């Protein structure tokens, strides 16, 4: 706490205390478990990806422009969260706050596009119950969307609470939140490839 009082922080404030190191290691392990979770969801999706018996097929409904925009937004948000952590390591608190807020805004924009996309599909007859493909699609992409929602709420809460400055107590919290955000991004890269690109190619003689 003394560091915070005097405005002098160690070089990597997130790793300055045992609590901080525990938090970061624990969070990495948690992400390991999350990898298995999404791995299982991807396996489920791959097993069912051609089973669109009664519902529409992916290449009939996916719009690459919308998905590309969403992907661009989410990948950019990963970059801005890197800027935020650079700000933390430079002990430039304002820079960190600024880039985390940009990250949150991009996250909300991504969610908006995803909700728009889901509503659109719903009207096209692509629902959770329309086919096994529909169930797998909404569960995988929806789990990711749920993670994004949790992430933006979490980072917002951290930003609202910690307005006074960086300390060795709140630095690990920001740090693991940025880890979480990168993880969500990596998962999206796989969703973009496996769900959307392979889905659109599926209509051109693939699958």
């Amino acid at each position: 706490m003394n560091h915070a009082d005097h405005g002098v922080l160690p070089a990597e404030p997130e790793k300055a205390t045992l609590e901080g190191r525990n938090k970061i290691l624990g969070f990495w392990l948690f992400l390991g478990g999350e990898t298995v979770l999404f791995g299982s969801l991807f396996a489920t999706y791959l097993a069912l990806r051609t089973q669109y018996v009664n519902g529409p097929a992916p290449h009939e409904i996916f719009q690459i422009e919308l998905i590309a925009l969403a992907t661009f937004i989410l990948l950019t948000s990963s970059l801005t969260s890197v800027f935020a952590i650079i700000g933390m390591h430079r002990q430039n608190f304002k820079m960190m706050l600024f880039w985390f807020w940009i990250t949150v805004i991009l996250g909300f924009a991504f969610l908006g596009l995803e909700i728009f996309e889901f509503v659109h599909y719903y009207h096209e007859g692509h629902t959770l119950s329309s086919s096994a493909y529909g169930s797998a699609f909404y569960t995988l992409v929806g789990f990711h969307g749920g993670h994004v929602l949790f992430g933006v709420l979490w980072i917002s809460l951290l930003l609202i609470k910690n307005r006074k400055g960086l300390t060795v107590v709140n630095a690990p919290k920001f740090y693991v939140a940025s880890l979480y955000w990168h993880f969500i991004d990596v998962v999206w890269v796989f969703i973009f490839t496996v769900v959307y690109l392979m889905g659109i190619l599926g209509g051109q003689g693939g699958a």
Partner: protein
Amino acid sequence: MAQHVRPRNTGLWDWITTVDHKKIGILYLVAGGFFFLLGGLEALLMRLQLMYPEQNFFIGATFNELLTMHGTTMIFLAAMPLIFAVMNAVVPLQIGARDVAFPFVNSLGFWLFFSGGVLLNLSWFMGGAPEAGWTAYVPLSGMQFSKTTGVSFYVLGLQIAGIGTLIGGINFLVTIINMRAPGMTFMRMPMFTWTAFITSALILFAFPAITVGLVLLMFDRIFGAVFFNVASGGNVLLWQHLFWIFGHPEVYILILPAFGMISEVISTFAKKRLFGYSAMVFATIVIGFLGFMVWVHHMFTVGLGPVANSLFSIATMLIAVPTGIKIFNWLFTLWGGQIRFTAANLFAVGFIPTFTIGGMTGVMLSVAPADYQYQDSYFVVAHFHYVLVGGMMLGLFAAFYYWWPKMFGKMLNEAMGKWNFWLFFIGFHLTFFPQHFLGLMGMPRRVFTFMGGQQLELGNLISTWGAIIMGVGTLLFLVNVAYTHMKKQPQAPADPWDGRTLEWTIASPAPEYNFAQTPRVRGIDAFWIEKMAGNKGMTPAEPLGPIHMPSPSVLPFIMSIGFFIAGMGFVFNKYLFAIVGLGIVLICMFFRSYKDDEGFHIDVEEIKETEKGARL
């Protein structure tokens, strides 16, 4: 710094809010013990129904409910928490740590397991228990064939308990990696800590698979998804894969800690260092790794083809190699030792041949063509009870007798403990040994009756009597506990067994802060090294100073109530309740994140006072 006043909670409130790993260990022990008795009662009722041919006590759906709840309760609500009880009580002490890495998460893990378990068992009174077997195979567990809310209780109860187990596992991984005392390198860690470490890693990578499986089943049953509806393109095999990708590592999650427990007990009571320590560590890691490579051996008769079956067959047989290493190392540890047959050591030594039989039938089952004959027969039932009861439960009993003084400060009665062992051991073999032959003679598992005149009578009768004897043995343990805690007896000494590891260097029961001064570790069996060097205790690695402790918190308890309400809401399709429940969870998370826990300090005077009163 008003936050730093030491909180003093008492009574029930203390137990609800505690974040002390030793108290959480006791909570796990009591709750897990309760569910163990419940699961045991269900088993006895099934055995009574099968005592003679064509009886009518519990038939049809009732028998299926007993069967499902027995398996589910024993695996998820008895075995797992009892292992967590010992891990909580022992691991931080064995590595010379003051606390676990995440005391709050640890408490949350317990309360989630408990609320999941209560939710699952309330199904008995709210529309019927699940009746699709503990494996809940679809389509049997789908809405079409399980119309009651039973399977929904199964799905939600296990989901909630599973989250608790997962975060508990992460806590132990970080504790063991980051919080070992100076000098306690990985290759100096006691064997039980090693197995707890590997088990936690298996939990981390296995539980998310069942989480996904349960999510799919829940979405199918509650939200109208069609994952397992073949007419809509669904695939029922998906469930089997997800279930066993979790389910097989789960078997090793349960047995590895038992390996660790008896390693400690055998080494202490043979008065020898564990034979082949590094080989034991290596074998544990290999078993943990291979545990993820063998799940299809539960699915040999599904028809995945000869290539898949052969590969998984060979991978399964491979596990016999590291397991064999362990068996021989225990024998070599005993060889030439000054063996003391205390109750704990009887259980540990009883473990070795019993588990070997279970392992041997495991190798028999791993031969895919032969498995077509054993599949779904009582042979399989006999096999997995030999490894789970004859393996894990004997290990747990050994652990209870061995570490009871460290957990409670009182010694369990040795004479009663020996009776406990012999009744349980003989009852166990009488129950399950005949079941091998019942299976080979063609008796299918999960049936509620059998016909007379097929030579199945004798085996079933012996089996039921064995179960009754085993039940008496278990009750004797409870009598022993009651007797021990009601009788006035002196506080147990710090080191009652002439122990070898760090937990025996501190008072029984361990003080709140565990170690007044963090010890310096100089090798494997750290305490024994000091004893042999003629030292009275460990050399401290730090001066005596105030000790920082985390504050107790009621949030884990409230969060679990939130999950419980949400679970009920989903089971009965009352989404308002589900939203309220999840809202409570999120609000608790908000408060936890928003308000930093500054904890409190135990000052030097108090530590000195406590240490003076301890009987070292």
